């Protein structure tokens, strides 16, 4: 592994680009064209979210009567009040459930994936490559394909319709394991561990106090991908849960959305406001943790 870190390459690239771009008039026209196309696509990706923000401030009446992209008698706080007040604060409970499923599931899932991936990267033992291939095969199995088999199995051991049914089904993350192995190979120098070993540190001590810290960027990426995966999951909770007190936000809003179309129109503003509330934390996290996405998904993308 003798790849040069991105940051060392970047300055020279930047110089190349600058000189390249300040070229002829034809080059400038081409650059303007690229910006125009990119901006049009940015509008496609962002405008629906902007619409959601505006729609969450409207009453049921103004939602259909006012232009979609106009601010019309905003009443965000009224809407938030009715969202959190509806059915004795059920939405708050769903939000809490979503946080519990995602934070606990991703924390446990990341820890076990990091330990196993690290062990596979650093130690030699019989069956190592076989284990790796099996898990890599698991990366190709989409979570939706697993939800029904998990339901069939869990219904035999009475785990359906419980917190544990969703939690246990969420912790295994083959892609996380794969990233953990790559991350350990790239970030943990063998010599450092050798030195720690000579000093008499045990295997677990070496992992928890040295190696895991070196793997932090990879570990954060694993946590984030798994967190988003669990937060966004729909098929698993929908097959596992009947008790609405156990619902995550996605399932709860789905239920309210269906009731809304079944005739309970006042629910429309509640569903739209709830949709906004449920995406805001994730969007904020995405903006602040961007670099982990870029680097982490990159390793997965190039090596796979």
């Amino acid at each position, binding site marked *: *592994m003798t790849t040069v870190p991105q940051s060392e390459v970047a300055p020279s*690239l*930047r110089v190349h680009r*600058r000189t390249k*771009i300040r070229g002829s008039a034809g080059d400038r026209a081409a650059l303007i064209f*690229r*910006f125009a196309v990119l901006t049009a*696509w*940015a509008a496609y*990706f962002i405008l*629906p*979210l902007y*619409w959601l923000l505006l729609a969450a401030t409207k009453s049921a009446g103004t939602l*259909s009567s006012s*232009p*979609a992209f106009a601010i019309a008698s905003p009443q965000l706080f009224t809407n938030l009040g009715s969202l959190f007040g509806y059915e004795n604060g059920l939405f708050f409970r769903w939000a809490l459930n979503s946080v519990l499923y995602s934070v606990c599931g991703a924390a446990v899932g990341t*820890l*076990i994936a990091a*330990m*196993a991936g690290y*062990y596979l*990267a*650093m*130690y*030699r033992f019989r069956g190592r490559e076989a284990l790796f291939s099996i898990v890599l095969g698991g990366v*190709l199995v989409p979570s*939706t*394909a697993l939800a*029904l*088999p*998990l339901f*069939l*199995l869990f*219904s*035999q051991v009475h785990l359906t319709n419980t917190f544990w049914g969703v939690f246990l089904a969420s912790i*295994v993350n*083959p892609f996380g394991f794969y990233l953990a192995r790559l991350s350990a*190979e790239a970030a943990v120098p*063998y010599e450092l561990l050798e030195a720690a070993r000579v000093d008499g540190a045990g*295997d*677990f001590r070496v*992992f928890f106090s040295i190696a895991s810290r070196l793997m932090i960027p990879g570990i954060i990426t694993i946590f984030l991908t798994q967190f988003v995966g669990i937060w*966004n999951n*729909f098929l698993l909770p929908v097959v596992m849960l009947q008790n609405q007190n156990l619902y995550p936000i996605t399932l709860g*809003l789905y239920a309210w*959305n*269906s009731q809304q*179309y079944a005739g309970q129109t006042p629910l429309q503003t509640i569903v*739209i406001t709830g*949709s906004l509330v449920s*995406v805001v934390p*994730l969007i904020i996290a*995405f903006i602040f943790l961007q670099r982990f*996405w*870029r680097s982490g*998904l*990159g390793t997965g*993308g*190039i090596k*796979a």
Partner: protein
Amino acid sequence: MGRRAWRARPLLVRLGFLGPFFVPFLLFFVVPIVYALYESTLKVVRTGGVFGTTSTQFAGFQQYAAVLGDTSFTSGILRVIVFALIQVPLMTVIAVLLALLIAAIPRRAGNVYRALFFLPYAVPGVIASIMWSTLYQPQTSPLNEIGINLPLLGALVLPSIANIGIWGWAGFNMILMSTALTSIPEELFEAARIDGASNLRIAMSIKLPLIRPTVIMSAIFSVIGTLQLFTEPTILRAASSVITSTFTPNMLAYNNAVSGNYSYAAAVSVTLAAATFVMSFAVLSIARRAGRS
């Protein structure tokens, strides 16, 4: 790679590191798949009329025969294949195009666009579907305001669903392509540029072939995802009369599972998984053949 690895450690250490991952992997990943295979070979037999007792029997491939003869399954699978044919090429082209354009503008501006395009990935499929279904409704659609009336929840429902998928995933795939592009050494196209090759020419004949493995991988993952289609049509069903409860194979399997037909649901799931495997293999070999010519 020539990397030295530590010798194997005592069994207890090995189990301590590997056990916490591989035991749940076995229990919640491998066993469910095996169990679904087993369940799909069973059938429930009722003896003594409607109020009689039920017993479970081995049925071999009977459930699979029933699945393949079920028109709601065959039309569902055709539907998701058509859906994949709409969505995957379109999304892959968009992702490649955006990644190439971003690579050709100053780095800082490129990062801003990358972040903007990636943002919809943060929106859960359920929320994206609720949002778009409201945008598709004639009463609340901005398209209707400017006088365009399309049957977005009627005849055009498949493209409407594809749009939700593209909106949510194009940015994610663009990031994959984008990272692959930045890993190409600059010297490679610097030489071509000196020889007088245009930007378009460089993009088509140097950059694109070099990121081909990433493009293929992204297409395969997209095919797998689209055949599993469940969330979007399930949400849109509330607003659209053309989406039935067995619109996609996964919806059919879900419906059977909640109504207690476990064996049939298992057989549908396994058949879908097999079809998914065949389709991703087809994408891979088409891509390989296209690469050779």
